[in-house]
C-alpha cells in the first residue's frame, strides 16, 4: 500500500505545516501523545513527548541531529506501557533498532504509531550546536543535502550516515518523505493500514505519489551503498589482525559509554560492570607477573569482543557508539563490518522484519552441520 498526502509549504514554513499535522493528530484524538524532535528553549533539538495540541509549535523532525537514539526513548516509554497511544517520529536507523528491541520485549509496539522519515544524515551533537549558531535550519539542510551538500564550514554529517544505505524508513506506519518531493513540499506516506487510517483521519487530501521519489531514493541508496563498501574494504584492510584491533582500541578507557549509547546493547546490566570484573588485587598482580606489566584498566579487548558477539547481530549502523566515545574512537566501522559478517552467517538483517526470529533465540537439529563437520 502506498498512499500519499502532500504537505506544501512556503519558504521558512516547513515546520509550521508539520506542526499543524501533529496538532491535528492530537486534536482529533488519533493519538494521546507525539514523540517528536522539537526545538528546546535556547538551543538544541531533542525528542520531546508532546501531549497537548497547543504545544506542537516547535516541532522540527528533520533537524539533522539525534542526541540520543530514539529507540532507547521508545523503550523507556513502552517497556512498561501506559496503554495510551503514542505517535513516534523516528529516523530509519532508530526504527530498525526499535524492531530489534520489540523482539527482545524491550519495546512494546501495541499502542504505537510509528512515523518514519527520510534521513539525509545527522551532525554530531556539538556540530549541530555550531550549525544552529550559524543560522542553519532544517529546511536549508534538506535543500542542500538533497542537492548533495551536507557539510558546513568545519563539520559534516557523521560517518555512519555517509555510509547508511537506508535513507528511508521501513516498518513504519507513516513516513515523512522529503526525497523526490520537489521544492516546497514534503509528502506523508502511509505504509500500513493503520497509517492509512490515521492519514485519512487527519483530514489531509490524498495526493499522487511524488513523481521523482523512487528514482531519487534509489540513487541515494546506491551512492551510500558504494560508500559503505569502500569504507568496509578500507577498514578490513586496516584492521585484519588482533594486533591492529588492539591499536584501534588503544585509546579506550573502559568507560562503557559506547554500550550505553548503543540502542541495541540490550542487557539490563552489562556483565562488565558486575562483580565478575571486579578482580582482586592478587589477580591483577598475577596477570602483571605473566608478562612483567599490565595496562590498566584491563579487559578492554575482552569488552569489545564480547559486545561484538552479543549485539553485532542487531547492529543497525546508527553510529551512536562513535558519537558517544569521549576519546574519539570510531567504533561504527568496527561494529558494522563485524555485523555484516555475523548477520550474513544467519541470513539475518537487523531491523528488516518483526517476524524474523533473532538468530540466538532459536535452534534446529539439521542446520549448521559445517560447524562440527560430523554426521552420524
Amino acid at each position, binding site marked *: 500500500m502506498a498512499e500519499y498526502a502532500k504537505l506544501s509549504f512556503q519558504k521558512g514554513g516547513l515546520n509550521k505545516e508539520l506542526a499543524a499535522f501533529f496538532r491535528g493528530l492530537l486534536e482529533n484524538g488519533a493519538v494521546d501523545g507525539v514523540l517528536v524532535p522539537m526545538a528546546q528553549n535556547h538551543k538544541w533539538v531533542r525528542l520531546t513527548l508532546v501531549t497537548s495540541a497547543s504545544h506542537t509549535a516547535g516541532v522540527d523532525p528533520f533537524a539533522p541531529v539525534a542526541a540520543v537514539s530514539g529507540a532507547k526513548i521508545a523503550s523507556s516509554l513502552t517497556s512498561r506501557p501506559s496503554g495510551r497511544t503514542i505517535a513516534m517520529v523516528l529516523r530509519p536507523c532508530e526504527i530498525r533498532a526499535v524492531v530489534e528491541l520489540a523482539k527482545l520485549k524491550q519495546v512494546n509496539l501495541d499502542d504505537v504509531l510509528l512515523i518514519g522519515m527520510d534521513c539525509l544524515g545527522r551532525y554530531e551533537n556539538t556540530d549541530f550546536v555550531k550549525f544552529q549558531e550559524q543560522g542553519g535550519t532544517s529546511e536549508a539542510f534538506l535543500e542542500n543535502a538533497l542537492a548533495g551538500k551536507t557539510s558546513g564550514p568545519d563539520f559534516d554529517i557523521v560517518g555512519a550516515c555517509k555510509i547508511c544505505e537506508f535513507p528511508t524508513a521501513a516498518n513504519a506506519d507513516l513516513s515523512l518523505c522529503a526525497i523526490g518531493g520537489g521544492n516546497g513540499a514534503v509528502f506523508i506516506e502511509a505504509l500500513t493500514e493503520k497509517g492509512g487510517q490515521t492519514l485519512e483521519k487527519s483530514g489531509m487530501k490524498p495526493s499522487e505519489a511524488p513523481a521523482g521519489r523512487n528514482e531519487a531514493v534509489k540513487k541515494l541508496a546506491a551512492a551510500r551503498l558504494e560508500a559503505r563498501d569502500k569504507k568496509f574494504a578500507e577498514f*578490513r584492510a586496516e*584492521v*585484519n*589482525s*588482533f*594486533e*591492529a*584491533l*588492539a591499536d584501534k582500541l588503544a585509546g579506550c578507557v573502559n568507560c562503557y559509554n559506547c554500550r550505553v549509547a548503543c540502542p541495541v546493547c540490550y542487557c539490563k546490566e552489562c*556483565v562488565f560492570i558486575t562483580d565478575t570484573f571486579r578482580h582482586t588485587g592478587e589477580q591483577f598482580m598475577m*596477570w*602483571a607477573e*605473566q*608478562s612483567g*606489566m*599490565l*595496562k590498566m584498566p*584491563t*579487559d578492554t*579487548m*575482552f569488552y569489545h*569482543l*564480547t559486545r*561484538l*558477539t552479543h549485539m*553485532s*547481530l542487531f547492529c543497525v549502523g546508527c553510529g551512536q557508539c562513535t558519537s558517544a566515545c569521549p576519546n574519539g574512537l570510531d567504533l561504527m566501522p568496527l561494529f558494522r*563490518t*563485524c555485523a555484516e*559478517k*555475523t548477520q550474513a*552467517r*544467519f541470513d539475518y538483517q537487523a531491523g528488516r522484519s518483526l517476524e524474523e526470529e533473532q*538468530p*540466538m533465540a*532459536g*535452534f*534446529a*537439529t539439521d*542446520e*549448521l552441520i559445517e*560447524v*562440527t563437520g*560430523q554426521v*552420524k
Partner: protein
Amino acid sequence: MSEFEPKIVAFFCNWCTFTAADLAGTSRLSYPPNLKIIRVMCSGMVDPKYVIKAFLNGADGVLIGGCWPGDCHYINGNLKARRRVALLTEVLKQYGIGEERFWLRWIAASEGTMLREVAVQMTAKLKELGPSPLKNMGQMAI
C-alpha cells in the same frame, strides 16, 4: 629448540565428552597432553566469554565437546552451543582466529576412540598453524 606444544582449552560436557575422556583414560588410550580439560555440565553452558577469555589469555585453540544432537541431557543445549560457536567464529575470524583454532565436536560417552582422534587431530593442526596470533601480544590482549 623444542617443538611448539599448543595449549588447547577444552570445555567438555559432563555427560558425554567428559565421560568419553574418562573412558579413553580407563581404556589406556593415550592422547596428547595439550588439552586442558574444563568440565562443564553441558556444551550449552559455554558462554562465548569463556572462549574469548581463553584466547586472550594465550590459548592456541579452544575445543568444545558435547553430546550428539538428540542426546543432550538438557535436550537442546548442544544445538544452542552450535549457533553460538558459528556466531563467535564469525567475530574472531576477522582478526585472525578462525575455524582451525576453534572447534566444536560431538563426542558421545562411549566414543573414547573418537576423543583421542579429535585430540590428536587438533594438536597436529595447531602445531602446523603455530602459536595463536594473540600469544605474543601478552598483556595488551587482556
